[in-house]
């Protein structure tokens, strides 16, 4: 399968007064064509920064210090801001987590979307408006024609999220990073938005990268998934193998902490400790202080993700030794949840 985007050794640091925050410290993964990719991890693991780095819009005081992002045979990180402006929104788009803050409150939603279309396509104002109304209908905004002239505060949260998605889709991008598209929404609307995204993906034929911390969304939407932890990749694999046979202790711990709808409510298992301070990250494997399987070797070298099974990359150096134990633990946790 061909890759639409290859991210290699991407490093994005934030130069704050307290010190250098290594938000991304050399992450690599490929996004395959026509395969919905999931980026999953806790808050602060670097999911959003990855998307912003790809688009070249890392906010101050952040800077991309190393790495390559290959898209259409070119390294995006070598492009000038002017060249990137043409790609942003047009070829690579992002929809943001919180729709109530990602739409500008002082302009009509319609004009904000029309602006993006007019930036990337050679159309008149009237044509852009028609295109906006079309896309508003595609995201199922009722009475799109009148709603074109309304401001963000006149929309409900669910509608606002759909409008934010509509804006990212307006110039028909090849690849869309959807940053936590359902986090700000309640559960009923969440399902609507997810369905809609799948529908739009088929309709416009774009590749989707779902950024989320919600394993449920990953299971529902994605075919391939990359698990991030503290600015490093833990593993990249197909969704099925990640859920059934994770090859990294962090993924296993993450899966164990997801409640099951089958069992009774009981104490959830949690991962001990907190995510590390990214100014002074732990030596070696970032996860070792919280890892049940950590040995001395884990403190020494910072492992890169390597292929450990077919199509399955893992960054755990001890995976061969601990694999059986890992699977046993996951199985036990799942059985316990199901039996109670």
């Amino acid at each position: 399968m061909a890759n639409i985007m290859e991210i290699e050794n991407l490093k994005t640091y934030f130069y704050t007064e307290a010190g250098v925050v290594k938000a991304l410290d050399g992450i690599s993964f490929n996004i395959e064509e026509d395969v919905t990719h999931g980026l999953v991890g806790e808050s602060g693991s670097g999911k959003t920064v990855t998307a912003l780095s790809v688009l070249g819009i890392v906010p101050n005081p952040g800077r991309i210090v190393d790495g390559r992002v290959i898209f259409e045979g070119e390294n995006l990180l070598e492009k000038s801001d002017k060249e990137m402006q043409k790609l942003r929104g047009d070829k690579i788009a992002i929809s943001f987590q919180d729709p109530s803050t990602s739409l500008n409150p002082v302009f009509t939603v319609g004009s904000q979307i029309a602006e993006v279309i007019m930036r990337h396509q050679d159309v008149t104002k009237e044509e852009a408006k028609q295109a906006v109304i079309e896309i508003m209908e595609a995201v199922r905004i009722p009475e799109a024609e009148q709603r074109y002239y309304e401001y963000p505060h006149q929309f409900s949260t669910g509608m606002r999220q759909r409008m934010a998605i509509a804006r990212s889709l307006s110039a028909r991008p090849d690849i869309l990073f959807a940053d936590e598209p359902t986090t700000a929404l309640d559960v009923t609307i969440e399902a609507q938005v997810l369905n809609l995204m799948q529908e739009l993906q088929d309709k416009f034929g774009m590749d989707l990268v779902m950024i989320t911390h919600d394993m449920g969304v990953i299971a529902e939407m994605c075919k391939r998934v990359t698990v991030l932890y503290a600015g490093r990749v833990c593993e990249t694999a197909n969704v099925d193998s990640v859920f059934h046979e994770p090859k990294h202790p962090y993924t296993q711990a993450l899966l164990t902490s997801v409640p099951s709808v089958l069992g009774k409510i009981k104490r959830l298992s949690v991962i001990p400790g907190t995510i590390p301070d990214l100014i002074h990250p732990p030596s070696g494997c970032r996860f070792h202080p919280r890892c049940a399987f950590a040995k001395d070797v884990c403190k020494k070298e910072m492992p890169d993700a390597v292929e450990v099974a077919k199509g399955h990359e893992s960054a755990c150096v001890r995976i061969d030794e601990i694999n059986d134990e890992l699977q046993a633990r996951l199985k036990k946790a799942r059985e316990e949840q199901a039996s109670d």
Partner: protein
Amino acid sequence: MIEITRLARFLIRRILFSIPVFFGVTIIVWALMYAAGDPVRLLLAGVPYITPEVVENLRRYYHLDRPVWEQYLFWVFNLVQGNLGESFVYNQPVLQLVIPWTIETVKLQLSALALALFLAIFIGVYSARHPYSITDMAVTTLALLGVSMPIFVWGIFGILIFSSYAHSATTALFGFPIYFPPVGAHAWNYRTFPFPLFLADAIWHMILPMCVLAITYMALYVRLVRSGMRETLEQDYVLAARASGLSDRKVVYKHALRNALIPLITYVGLAIATSFAGAPITETVFTWPGMGYYYVQALYSLDFPLIMAVISILTILILAANIIVDMTYGFIDPRITVE
């Protein structure tokens, strides 16, 4: 259509509400004016051979022999008919005197305000985009100086450097002076000038007081724009605008600035009031023939009709400015509806 009728309703209501404010202000000033002293005695001070009959006649002539409330009602009655009375000192209808002064004051204050806003936006945006850079530090320090130093100090420095020193230095260097006039709004014989020369002369006279005023106004605006932009530039919608490929200029000057302007407008609304009221200082420093300058003169001579005329015009200007500012909110931020 709905928008227009709503706007009209808003305007009518605000104007109706302004009427009692106007009369409240004039009543207070009227009372204070009478507490300040007797204009007839001031008028006749030092004039020899004044008999009590003359004083009595003069009082009767200006209706000063009537009770204070009756005089006020008489003033209001005349005001409604567009008659503001006759100046005690100039012996001319007050309205004829005040209109050219009002034009001079409004001209100076509004151009200074516009210049200050224009510069403050560019400087403030630059500072916000390069926080803690050398330029930003310099600008912020200067802004602090601008806020802290009173306008008459700026005015006197301005006159000293750009009128006095500039005049003598350029005369010595080139044989002819290059300077800005420190006094007045026009050349003495401006009535004989053809229009282009009249305009050039008016602008030349205005530059120094306008720049001095602009510096003191700008100081605060720069700080407001800077802090506003620092905040809005971090907002998600600015990142989203950038993410959709918009040019840098559009992201900054359209998406971020529009939101940063809201606190600025509040301040400009307040500043218009203080700028008109504070005009006496600037106009005295530059001998500018505006309301502020003559207002102070009228106070010295207790020229009641003139004081009331200036107060009335100032009150109307400030009330109108407030209504306009409230309307501007509605245009800049759709979340604020004019009600």
